[in-house]
């Protein structure tokens, strides 16, 4: 599979680029990181000692390579604020985000593909207009508005589900729907347009001339071809989902990666922020490779 | 007979996949004489289209030399190649994609004239465009209209008008009538023949259709898998073909 090997190398380069970008951006801040941390009225001597101990006085390239080597060994440095290794903090928080993302992805993709197929089959009839309106509405509502309205109606008015996450799976349903709402909309829209495109493909005429009804032709032939672009899009959606996770976690108080990153910004904790962002970028890149693998399996034309 | 273009030992291969290289043109030598219509005929994948693009230096050959009116053009840089571009013009196969959909007919035909600043004033350029429209039998009112408002045959006429706008020495037709219906094809073939005589052009005609070639070509080169297997004047080739592949091609024409 040389094609996949090349793709993997490409991802390694991208991750290097990501690391470089964060590293530079976090170090060109106007003030000196340490003095900001220990706030202004501390005497310069302690600031000097602190910078020394954190190795921030070494030239930038040297800092970068020591950080790179550390990252490869899984050590993302120590959080200034929480005095604990960043990797440990991430390992604590990641399972929650993973659960949230998996649940919201399941909801989004099942709902999205389902409505997409139905609105493609009943093209330009009632179900099509309803679902097209719904999916357009889906991609037009920000995650935090969906979350707040779910809380207002489901919790406050109907009190069916808990307000925030309390460890139980049941309390993860609302956050999952809130986070999955946007991607459900975009998956539905792409599934519909991709399937409509496939319906005009000549091999559908061949299937009907063979004796398949239009519906059979769609399911047995059109669907698989239409799913190829949808799978690629699902992988690309991983990054927007993790963005949404930051908001969903802060509204439903789920102590996941998003909340961790948010506290890192609020407490000006550079290594923690750097670690969480790098880890999330790594997860997204793995998602992209997974999509490529699935596409290569599904589409024989990609097998070199 | 003066030679317009002489090509010697042209080789060209394309890379497909990781290691495999596809030899499109394999050691071809060819002369095109002034004033004649030479046809390159062969099936898809025989390299006839690639050879034409090589002769026009739109793609560079791996090996071999090409001389235009005695001057070597194979090694020239893009800049040095420009004056020769003016002498060689191309008419394409697909009427739908050979005209820019965002430009009206006037701008399409004017592009070569304005690129080479043939006329210094817009009025003279418009005059020439009217003349060209007349030569390709198109009505004056088509100037302001866009390509999608024309039929396949009319679009080929616009393509031809653009190609002959700067009085080239060589007109290359790459399957220019293959996408057209029989009646329209006949009109365009007649037009090409008429223009060639009026403007004393040399024409390189690429096609897979032997009957079209037998009508329009003085000399015919039959190509197979990147090599020329037979070159002969039209009547001789169709009456008594020597190469076995040419005979096989002729016998396959339906309805002979």
């Amino acid at each position, binding site marked *: 599979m040389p094609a996949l090997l090349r793709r993997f190398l490409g991802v390694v380069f991208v991750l290097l680029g990501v690391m470089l970008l964060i590293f530079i951006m976090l170090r060109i801040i106007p003030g000196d990181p340490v003095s900001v941390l220990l706030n202004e009225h501390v005497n310069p001597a302690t600031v000097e000692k602190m910078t020394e101990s954190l190795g921030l006085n070494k030239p930038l390239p040297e800092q970068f390579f020591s950080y790179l080597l550390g990252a490869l060994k899984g050590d993302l440095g120590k959080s200034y604020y929480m005095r604990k290794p960043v990797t440990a903090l991430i390992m604590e928080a990641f399972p929650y985000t993973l659960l949230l993302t998996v649940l919201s992805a399941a909801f989004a993709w099942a709902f999205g593909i389902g409505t997409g197929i139905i609105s493609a089959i009943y093209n330009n009839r009632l179900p099509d207009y309803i679902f097209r309106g719904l999916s357009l509405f889906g991609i037009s509502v*920000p995650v935090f508005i969906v979350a707040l309205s779910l809380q207002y109606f489901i919790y406050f008015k109907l009190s069916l589900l808990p307000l925030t996450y309390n460890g139980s799976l049941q309390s993860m349903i609302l956050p999952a729907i809130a986070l999955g709402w946007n991607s459900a909309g975009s998956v539905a829209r792409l599934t519909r347009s991709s399937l409509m495109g496939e319906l005009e493909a000549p091999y559908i005429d061949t299937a009907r001339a063979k004796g398949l009804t239009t519906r059979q032709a769609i399911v047995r032939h059109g669907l698989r071809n239409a799913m190829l672009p949808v799978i690629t899009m699902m992988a690309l959606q991983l990054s927007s989902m993790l963005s949404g996770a930051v908001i969903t976690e802060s509204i439903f108080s789920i102590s996941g990666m998003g909340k961790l990153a948010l506290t890192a910004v609020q407490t000006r904790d550079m290594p923690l922020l750097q670690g969480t962002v790098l880890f999330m970028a790594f997860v997204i*890149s793995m998602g992209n490779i997974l999509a490529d693998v699935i596409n290569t399996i599904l589409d024989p034309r990609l097998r070199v | 007979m003066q030679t317009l273009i002489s090509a010697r030992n042209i080789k060209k291969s394309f890379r497909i996949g990781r290691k495999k290289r596809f030899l499109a043109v394999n050691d071809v030598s060819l002369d095109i004489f002034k004033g004649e219509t030479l046809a390159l005929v062969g099936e898809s994948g025989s390299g006839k289209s690639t050879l034409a693009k090589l002769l026009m230096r739109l793609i560079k050959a791996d090996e071999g030399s090409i001389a235009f009116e005695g001057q070597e053009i194979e090694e020239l840089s893009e800049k040095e190649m420009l004056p020769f571009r003016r002498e060689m013009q191309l008419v394409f196969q697909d009427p739908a994609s050979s005209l820019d959909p965002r430009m*009206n007919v006037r701008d399409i035909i004017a592009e070569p004239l304005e690129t080479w600043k043939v006329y210094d004033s817009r009025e003279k350029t418009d005059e020439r465009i009217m003349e060209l429209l007349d030569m390709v039998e198109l009505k004056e009112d088509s100037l302001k209209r866009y390509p999608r408002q024309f039929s396949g045959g009319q679009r080929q006429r616009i393509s031809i008008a653009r190609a002959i706008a700067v009085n080239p020495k060589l007109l290359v037709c790459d399957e220019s009538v293959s996408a057209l219906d029989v009646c329209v094809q006949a009109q365009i073939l007649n037009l090409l023949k008429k223009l060639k005589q009026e403007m004393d052009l040399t024409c390189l005609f690429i096609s897979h259709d032997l009957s079209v070639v037998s009508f329009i070509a003085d000399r015919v080169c039959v190509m197979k898998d990147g090599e020329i297997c037979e070159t002969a004047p039209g009547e001789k080739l169709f009456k008594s073909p020597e190469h076995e592949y040419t005979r096989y091609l002729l016998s396959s024409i339906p309805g002979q």
Partner: protein
Amino acid sequence: MSSSSPSNKETVMRKVPLFSRMPILPPSVTVPASIILLIILLALLVPIVSPYDALRQNLTERLSAPGTAHILGTDALGRDCFTRIFYGTRISLFVALIPTAFAVLIGMAAGIAAAFFGKAADALVTWLSDVTLAFPGMLLAMVIMYSFGGSFSSIVISIVIMEWGSIARIVRSVTLSILENEYILAARSIGVKRFNIIIRHIIPNLIPTLIVLFTLNIPASILSESSLSFLGIGIQPPEVSLGLMVNESRTLLFNKPHLVLGPAGMIMLLVLSFNFLGDALRDRFDQEV
């Protein structure tokens, strides 16, 4: 541009017929377009016309219900909601339109360079866009907020960095399909210089895609800005933005829902109409080809 003679430059510039014959537009385009224009008009006029100042606090009239005095009532600090919504819309639109324009311009340049100028440019642009796309948008914005603080410019920069990547990728693939057309080979065989091919053939054929991209990326920017402001790391008080208004009245969600409904409704209306407009324009242009 090389020092080409005036006549050539003049002909090149005039030769690009952008909207020379834009036919009458179907309702699916005019309806959302007029909603957007109406909102923009109100956003400009209401803060001037309205008797109340969007920022001045007036604690005596804290949390008064919607009524004749205050059409949509007042918020926790006694500020008139109706005025604030349109004042906030102005900021939100400003913060959405500017970065989208930059993102489309950068994306276009990068996309054309990647498709037109050979393997090296292609690899560089693809790498750069992959790097920016590997970040979840929100986290990238956080890194920028961390460095530059929550000012206008930092939001604009983070939205541009978030969006240019996908635009560049789309422009690259559309440009590649344009380059496959024979009229590009025709231009080359006529002897048109590379730069002129971009100006005369590639950009005019890219315009429909660019318009659709611009229209569809504005709602994405509005969503990003409002999410950032909602998290408190976007527009900082005392400034006003729709996302910030939702955040400020979030604690009163259950007893004063209308405080949240106002800004949230405006965000949705804006995003919905831009998405609707984008879809309609795309169908319109597909029809035309």
